[in-house]
């Protein structure tokens, strides 16, 4: 009896999380929720890296996942810093009111 779950089940899970994240990025107005949806997308990518690392029996995918998590941390720190600075100036968190570059 096969003790493992097929690889494509993990890929379906990853695809579902990725799609939900993309929908969140494209449809929400709140910038913090957009950032959180990006974290969700990065997380879906991590599942893919991990399952292929397991499939090929090598840890390279896990090392790449560590780099992805590093990037997520850097992105969250800088993005939240930008949100704080923007909120201090404009008193809003809505993405469609961030239009100062459109003039």
């Amino acid at each position, binding site marked *: 009896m096969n*003790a*493992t*779950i*097929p*690889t*494509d*089940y*993990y*890929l*379906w*899970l990853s*695809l579902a*999380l990725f*799609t*939900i*994240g*993309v*929908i*969140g990025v494209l*449809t*929400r*107005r*709140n910038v*913090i*929720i957009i950032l*959180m949806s990006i*974290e969700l997308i990065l*997380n879906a990518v*991590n*599942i893919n890296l*991990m*399952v292929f*690392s*397991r*499939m090929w*029996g090598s*840890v*390279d995918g*896990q*090392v790449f*996942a*560590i780099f992805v998590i*590093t*990037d*997520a*941390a*850097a*992105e*969250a*720190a*800088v993005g*939240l*810093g930008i*949100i*704080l*600075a923007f*909120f201090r100036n404009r*008193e809003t968190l*809505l*993405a469609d009111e961030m239009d100062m570059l459109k003039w």
Partner: protein
Amino acid sequence: MAALNSILFFFLSALAVVSAILMVTRRNIVHGAVYLITTLLATAGIFLLLQAEFLFVVQVILYVGGIMVLFVFVIMLVNLDVSLLRFQFNGQRFVAGVLALALSAQVFLAIWMGRNSLHLPEPAASIAAKNTEAVGDALFQRFMLPFEIASILLLVAMIGAVVMAKRRV
């Protein structure tokens, strides 16, 4: 053992997907953050099923303990009644939903056509026992340069966050 693995996988997947959907659709940002934490913890469980113990710990400590605390902290800092506004979704939501579904349908097709060539090997006890050691070896030998570049990236992000959050630039 196989049954336990399957039950755990389906439970964790359902938890991750349901809380992700709730995260994207809730009005209140704090609720969204809590649902995202649930998704991240369920994903950490998936990592454990895939015998990536080190990544499981990194996910729990760094994502849930670090990044999400940062998110919740910023939500507390900027909390005005923006979360109770009437229009939480922007005007392009139908177009955006259709486009996102088209994108996911493409990926769905790709996975569907290639699914027979994908199969996980049986878990190897000897490799699983030394996961952290293997990751450390790879990180400090073959991936030494990317590792150092990542540290510079973190330094830049730290300085950038401090400068941007300062009151007077």
